[in-house]
């Protein structure tokens, strides 16, 4: 990257159905726990699927939607060791698929939202809420590329730092589950009748989840000056389009390959450098097959030797938060040199090209220095992040 500033992760925060905070996510993942349960928040009798990984939470007293509450909590945790965050060099980048949907559908149903209903359905409100709460006066943006939103937000935030727009950026994603999205995925027959089993031979669909994940990204020199603890570096980001179908992935995974190749190029890395993959791994037949094809192509013969985790068997598919939570997981794997097992995965298909870590956490013999995190989405959008050990 020449003389461009390097971008490091100096704070992380997570809200997931495994519990409050990063420790709940990490400890739960290491134990192979799954937070997928029968849905009680809304009536599922009209639907085929019945389960999701939901957080036991109600809307805030100020009327804030669940995704906003998740984002606020995760942001506070990510900034816990950084009380000085804010000002004209501080940015906010949020990825979301659904933010604003709750307010919008409520207004549509009752037409009682009053003035501001249009604004309350505005997905961009999520990033501006965080900007106001944390005093960020630099670039503030919301990215929405469906299930790749969180990864895109992290990638764009890192670029802001490299190009000098900001010296630190709170970046991540948030989404909440409602009957709106549950019904839609069910209508597409994308939901599992049991639980998500990423890359498992018996997988039968995804399980929805909700939550938020945020990373404090910072210019490495500044982090060093303030003595911040550095978890990892964000070295590369890539985006690529399938140009194939709105909801079905390209069977050969060409869009994801392009995203990964761009991210590697930006990071100045080769595919042979990748030591760990945090996969999108939804547990659907088509997505996981696509991802196997893409990773087999990019990693080549090494694919069977690179440990892979898919977190969606533990916390469900958290949509716009997924890419950010998986980036957090990647940062933790790099920092702690342990790979959690993939909850829900028991057995890969015999000819799977991937090594999916299953059953128990892995402490790899070869140090994990470079992690790849992948995301794929409706609309054929794919995103990839490269993180490095600090």
């Amino acid at each position, binding site marked *: 990257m020449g003389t461009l500033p390097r971008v490091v992760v100096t704070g992380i925060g997570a809200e997931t159905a495994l519990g409050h905070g990063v420790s709940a996510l990490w400890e739960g993942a290491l134990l192979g726990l799954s937070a997928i349960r029968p849905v009680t928040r809304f009536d599922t009798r*009209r*639907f*085929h699927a019945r389960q999701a990984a939901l957080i036991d939470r109600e809307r805030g007293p100020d009327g804030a939607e669940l995704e906003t509450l998740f984002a606020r909590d995760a942001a506070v945790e990510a900034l816990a060791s950084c009380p000085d965050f804010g000002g004209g060099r501080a940015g*906010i980048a949020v990825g979301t*698929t659904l933010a604003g*949907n709750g307010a*919008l559908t409520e*207004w*549509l*149903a009752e037409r009682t*939202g*009053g*003035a*501001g*209903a*249009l604004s309350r*359905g*505005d*997905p*961009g*409100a999520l990033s*501006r809420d965080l*900007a106001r709460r944390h005093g*960020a*006066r*630099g*670039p*503030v*943006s*919301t*990215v*929405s*590329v*469906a299930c790749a939103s969180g990864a895109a937000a992290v990638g*764009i935030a890192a670029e802001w730092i490299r190009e000098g*727009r900001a010296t630190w950026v709170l970046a991540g994603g948030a989404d909440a589950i409602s009957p*709106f999205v549950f*019904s*839609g*995925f*069910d*209508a*597409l027959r994308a939901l599992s009748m049991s639980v998500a089993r990423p890359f498992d031979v018996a997988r039968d669909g995804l399980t929805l989840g909700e939550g938020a994940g945020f990373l404090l990204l910072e210019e490495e020199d500044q982090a060093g000056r303030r003595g911040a603890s550095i978890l990892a570096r964000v070295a590369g980001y890539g*985006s*690529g*389009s*399938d*140009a*194939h179908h*709105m*909801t079905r992935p390209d069977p050969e995974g060409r*869009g994801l390959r*392009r995203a990964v190749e*761009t991210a590697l190029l*930006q990071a100045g890395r080769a595919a042979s450098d990748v030591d760990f993959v945090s996969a999108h791994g939804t547990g659907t037949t088509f997505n996981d097959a696509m991802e196997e094809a893409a990773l087999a192509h990019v990693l080549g013969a090494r694919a069977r030797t690179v440990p892979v985790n898919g977190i969606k068997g533990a916390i469900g598919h958290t949509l716009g938060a997924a890419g950010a939570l998986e980036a957090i997981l990647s940062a933790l794997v790099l920092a702690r040199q342990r790979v959690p097992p993939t909850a829900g995965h028991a057995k890969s298909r015999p000819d799977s090209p991937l090594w999916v870590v299953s059953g128990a956490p892995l402490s790899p013999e070869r140090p994990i220095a470079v992690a790849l995190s992948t995301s794929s*989405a*409706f*609309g*054929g*959008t794919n995103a990839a992040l490269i993180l490095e050990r600090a």
Partner: protein
Amino acid sequence: MRPVFIVSAALAAEAENGAPEDANRLRRMDRFGRTGFLAGTRAFRAWGAPRPPEPDARGGVVVGTRHGCRPAITEHAARLAAAARVEDLAPSVFAATVHNSVNGELAMALGLGGVSETIVSGRTAGLEALILGARRVASSDADRVLVVAAEGVDDAMREAWGEERSALGPSAAGVELVETGASVLLEAREISSNREEKKQERIRFVEGCLFFEPDARRASARFFEWMDGVEARAGGNARSAAVSPCVPDYEDFLEGSKERGPRVERFGAAGVFEIAREVADRRAQAANALSPHSPSKKILLAYVTRDTTGAVAAVVLESWYF
């Protein structure tokens, strides 16, 4: 970083028809999808770039919108409210309830397999998308990026806009909500391939800025400070930039400016709309070699959008003829 040029621009308005080859695609889109798709395909095809046989990894789409797929969300919500069982829903409608639907449709129609990003940052979204698209080209992530800004407007949005407009106060009185699609095609290539024009104009992306400042006066000061820097960096060939406010100015953000912005609300499509319209006008003038409006010197054109919540996005373009 490579220089980035706007090589084509197009607009799409409400209730327009698309090209016959796009009829099937257009039928499955909501109003947002259609306006964005129409503007994007027009800008791409006007430039004359053929659809590659395989998706082009070097070509991408970046979209900006405030409300995105809200019309499709409204339709799915209505269907869900009436549904006794999930089979009563339309999967194709739900599939359109992602804000990157325009990215996907354009990628498929035009064979664009590279970057795909959608910004939903309120009224600044369009110019943010332009800044991001220019970065993708400048940094060699892509050679060609179609930047699209669109807002589809359905009846429910018009109703909600009436309420929001009232809340904005007297300065918003009479401001109408307008469905809009606008697109510009960015390329790294410096020389236009359109040899038909008698007099060739180049429009280069110079810089963009993004910041969040809820106080309108401080925001104005930051914007003009940035503009001063851009003009200084542009050097002696540049004249002072003409500043175009692209959205209605409800807060007197550009205090003292003669330009008060349009009296229509295009939300996230506003900034790219103004640029696409300007480019189209200039191209039309350039087709007439005797046009008195064709400047021989480089000029700077500034476009600024401000969201009522405090976000600001601005870009400066450089235009000249050769």
